[in-house]
């Protein structure tokens, strides 16, 4: 055991941390872009007036939630290159993550919007508000508060989900751990460390969400 640890140096730790940064960047990218997709999906899924759009939103959500993320990453990564689209790896891996986020968060947005009572809508309408004003000033303040816990839940899933990008050789945290464990054979140590880093990313997220929930809960 001791001689195995000798092979494991601070450089390896730095390499892991670099991988962690890539993981965080990927999540930030997927979550922020995915949120834009999700808002769109959430809004068209709750639009009473446009049934055709609602069906498209439904199909999108079902497909991306009903298939493994791993498969989506494979298809996006290799499929796009078969189609002749040579995208930078970061982008090729981000696209499925964004669409996956869009589907899950889209459902969370929909649930948030639908949780706002009919009476709130009618109060806004009776004051002469437009759909957009209602969404922005009446529905959003209520819906966002409802959306926080499931969103953080999803974000934590996403952080772990990015580890699947290792299958296409993209060096994020998990791949970095794999590479080091191959060269040092300190497999247990390396993956314990990798796990600790994931936890170190996710736990503060949970804490922050709890704080935010408590702060926003006033006057509920």
């Amino acid at each position: 055991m001791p001689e195995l640890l000798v092979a494991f140096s601070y450089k390896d730790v730095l390499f892991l941390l670099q991988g962690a940064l890539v993981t965080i960047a990927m999540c930030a990218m997927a979550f922020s872009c995915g949120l834009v997709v999700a808002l769109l999906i959430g809004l068209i899924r709750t639009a009473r007036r446009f049934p055709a759009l609602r069906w498209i939103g439904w199909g999108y959500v079902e497909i991306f939630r009903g298939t493994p993320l791993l498969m989506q990453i494979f298809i996006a990564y290799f499929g796009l290159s078969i189609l002749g689209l040579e995208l930078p790896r970061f982008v090729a891996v981000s696209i499925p993550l964004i669409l996956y986020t869009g589907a899950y968060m889209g459902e969370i947005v929909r649930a948030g919007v639908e949780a706002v009572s009919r009476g709130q809508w009618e109060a806004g309408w009776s004051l002469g508000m437009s759909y957009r004003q209602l969404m922005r000033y009446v529905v959003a303040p209520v819906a966002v508060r409802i959306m926080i816990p499931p969103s953080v839940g999803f974000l934590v899933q996403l952080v772990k989900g990015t580890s699947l990008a290792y299958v296409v050789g993209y060096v994020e945290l998990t791949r970095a751990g794999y590479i080091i464990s191959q060269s040092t054979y300190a497999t247990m140590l390396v993956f314990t460390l990798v796990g600790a880093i994931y936890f170190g990313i996710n736990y503060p997220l949970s804490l922050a969400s709890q704080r935010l929930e408590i702060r926003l809960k006033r006057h509920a």
Partner: protein
Amino acid sequence: MLELEDVHKWFGNLHVLKGISMTVSRGEVVVVIGRSGSGKSTILRCINGLEPIQQGRIMVDGEVVDAHSRHVRKIREEVGFVFQSFNLFPYYTALENVSLALKIVKKMPLAEARSIAEEMLARVGLSDKLDAYPDRLSGGQQQRVAIARALAMNPKLMLFDEVTSALDPELVGEVLKVMQDLAEGGMTMVVVTHEMGFARRVADRVLFIHEGQIAEEGPTAQIFTAPRNESLRAFIESIL
């Protein structure tokens, strides 16, 4: 001010309004009574375009109400609506509840919206609750904020949909008092209510709705003392 001509409304196969015709002139207070399910609330909701009608015509101050047109928003600005369940915006203070639409719908500067909101809340006796959130207010106070919110838009017509039905008995009086003040100030009002005492004191005219039709209408005194319609007589007896 308000005119309904042979208004019909269906919910699916259910024919809820069967040819309602009525007029309300400026400054008049009309109270609408009837059993639950008779369609009286639906009349108010149609006037405000919250429910589309399938036949007939509704005019507010010379303009046709079409629930599907964009123009209905303009009409709603001029028609105040107070709901049974208050429907205050939960994350806004009393003051913000009243000033929100002034800011975003009427595009008023902040200071002006604020001063109107303060004035309206004073009018309903809530000057000391400007910064309170709805969850810190009693039902009666919430309903008075809701009335202030509707009044702030400076409506030509106010619609009240069973606004005291969700209140504890001891809180009903404070809300009715505000409404009575409004009526005495010359506001045109259509009030759906079960408060017969209020109807007697305040109404100029009473409509009795039965199974989607106006079964009887007339001056307040006549409706209560000399009802001609059989179902109205039964209704009044069941309430008194």
